[in-house]
């Protein structure tokens, strides 16, 4: 795995095209440029290994969520928010074959020479356009046709098209006030529109459920829906008043993702592994790649553990001390103490940085998608800090063909 720089003279056009043609509408976060000046190149062997692990992790995760959904007593240690827990029984009718399952597993190269997985984005993984259009734009700038990439968008659209009738009405559910959410949905919406689907951009409360069927109540776009593509996280859904969102849990309308995703979305998922294994679920790949995870109380006095919020996103509130902003570490630790069930303790791994062209060092988070159980491409971010959070820059992932390497 290595970084190759986007030629300096090409970067302006690259950035401009990403914003205007590739749905990258958030190129800046505070003082940080979120469009990397590099492409990430992985070898054929790395790709094969990651893709194999990703599919195995996915198989284990889907098996785990089925068992948890069938025996919800096992889910106790997940300590899911009360409002969500109350709705889980609605998922008795969950049929995996009726929905589209999308997940992203976050891999990190470690100083020990291997890989660690930090989490699965099971509920609403993002980065769609970055994983689909950005690599092509990079290839053009690098004039590098020997490197290839997986177009995530094509795979997701095909999976949706396999489940939804031709010309079907699909609502792309997101927080309509956030352009960062809309850019993800707009990419997918345009791709679905091209395939002849009727795409509706709406918010979670624009869907009402009648006899387990989703119906749009959005002004001027009312009527039955054939699919729901949700980008509003489940734990945000439960804040909506009046409560009409419970229908998401037992709808028979094709959903991506169905709320069954919550079992693995919580970072406390490893705390139910022992029980799942007793029920015959194989979690060997997870055990191999995810660092040791404990209840907060069990990590007391143990060296080398960090704390992560169970419902955290984009690296927020992870207690990697040197990566925290001023006062953040103390704030996190105070909250861990106050709400231990909202956190977990995890053995810290040390990320192996990659070298930039001027000697700078970048840490990588390589997200690897699955759609319907099959590997579906990559979304990566890099940063100079050990913690990959909102300050990180998006970077396209390109794959070497067999035995080929361009060392320019």
């Amino acid at each position, binding site marked *: 795995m290595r970084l190759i720089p986007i030629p300096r003279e090409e970067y302006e056009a690259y950035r401009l095209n990403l914003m*205007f043609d590739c749905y990258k*509408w958030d*190129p800046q976060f*505070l003082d940080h440029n979120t469009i990397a000046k590099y492409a990430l190149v992985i070898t054929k062997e790395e790709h094969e290994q990651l893709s194999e692990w990703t599919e195995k992790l996915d198989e284990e995760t889907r098996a785990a969520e089925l068992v948890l959904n069938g025996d919800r007593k096992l889910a106790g240690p997940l300590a899911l928010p009360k409002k969500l827990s109350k709705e889980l029984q609605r998922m008795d009718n969950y049929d995996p074959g009726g929905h589209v399952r999308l997940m992203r597993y976050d891999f990190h190269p470690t100083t020990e020479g291997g890989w660690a997985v930090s989490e699965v984005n099971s509920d609403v993984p993002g980065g769609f356009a970055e994983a689909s259009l950005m690599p092509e734009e990079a290839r053009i700038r690098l004039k590098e046709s020997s490197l290839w990439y997986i177009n995530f968008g094509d795979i997701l659209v095909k999976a949706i098209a396999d489940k939804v009738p031709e010309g079907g009405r699909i609502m792309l559910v997101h927080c*309509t*006030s956030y*352009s960062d959410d809309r850019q993800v949905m707009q990419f997918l919406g345009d791709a679905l529109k091209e395939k002849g689907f009727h795409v509706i951009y709406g918010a979670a409360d624009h869907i009402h459920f009648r006899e387990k069927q989703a119906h749009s*109540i959005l002004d001027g*776009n009312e009527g039955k829906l054939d699919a729901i593509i949700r980008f509003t996280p489940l734990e945000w859904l439960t804040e909506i008043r009046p409560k009409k969102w419970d229908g998401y849990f037992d709808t028979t309308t094709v959903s991506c993702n169905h709320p069954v995703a919550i079992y693995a979305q919580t970072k406390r998922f490893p705390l139910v592994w022992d029980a799942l294994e007793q029920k015959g679920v194989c979690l060997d790949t997870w055990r191999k790649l995810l660092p040791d995870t404990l209840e907060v109380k069990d990590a007391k006095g143990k060296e080398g553990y960090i704390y992560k919020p169970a419902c955290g996103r984009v690296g927020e509130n992870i207690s990697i001390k040197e990566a925290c902003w001023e006062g953040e570490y103390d704030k996190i630790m105070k909250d861990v103490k106050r709400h231990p069930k909202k956190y977990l303790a995890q053995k810290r791994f040390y990320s192996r940085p990659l070298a930039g062209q001027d000697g700078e060092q970048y840490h990588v988070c390589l997200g690897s998608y699955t759609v319907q159980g099959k590997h579906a491409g990559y979304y990566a971010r890099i940063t100079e800090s050990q913690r990959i959070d909102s300050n990180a820059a998006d970077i396209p992932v390109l794959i070497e063909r067999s035995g080929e390497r361009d060392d320019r």
Partner: protein
Amino acid sequence: MTDKEIYQIWAPYGKKWTDWVRPVPFVGLREHSSKYRFSNLNVPVVALEEKEREGAAVIVDLPGVESVKVGIALAEIGFRPVPVYNGTIEQQGARATVDNQAVGVGLIWGASALSAIEIGEDAPPAFLLDTNRLNRFKMEDALFDNSWDIYPQDLPSAEYLMKSGIYRIVIISSRLSRDLAKILYGFQKKGIRICITDGYESPRNIKIRRPIKKD
């Protein structure tokens, strides 16, 4: 001019502060703003004395096109206008809480005006915001809520501003919006002074109270 060319006039690559220009209103700009006609697109006078501009960045928080017009007026007196509009377009056929497309006409008009103005390399920033972004009231659940807030991550940090010689923020608005208050409270804590003017009177210092935590 294409959407990209208009964006490049507002955000010439490599110039200070232009990294914060949000592309959102520029994407599909020509298409979205084609149905608008404004006749009163002229540059107003901004009452900001030279001594009031010293070490100051400006945040223009006015309704729709007015904010763009004041941005151009500020460019004429040495500021770099930085549009940070971030509202999305509603679903076709749906009524929305905010008309986020209206600033587009201003951005197209402003691009022509701006290309005739020479902005200094060290020009301080004037961030442009549309006050209408906060129109969140929904008469019916069926409406499309495309109201939006400005967040700390949409602007430079207080440290970056101070390192760039900015120790005062002048808000041009009829009132301090609650989303801005949250950001500026943080700036104030770090030692940046906050002033407000309606654009006619001299800016007056304000002290922002600690915002209530719950959104």
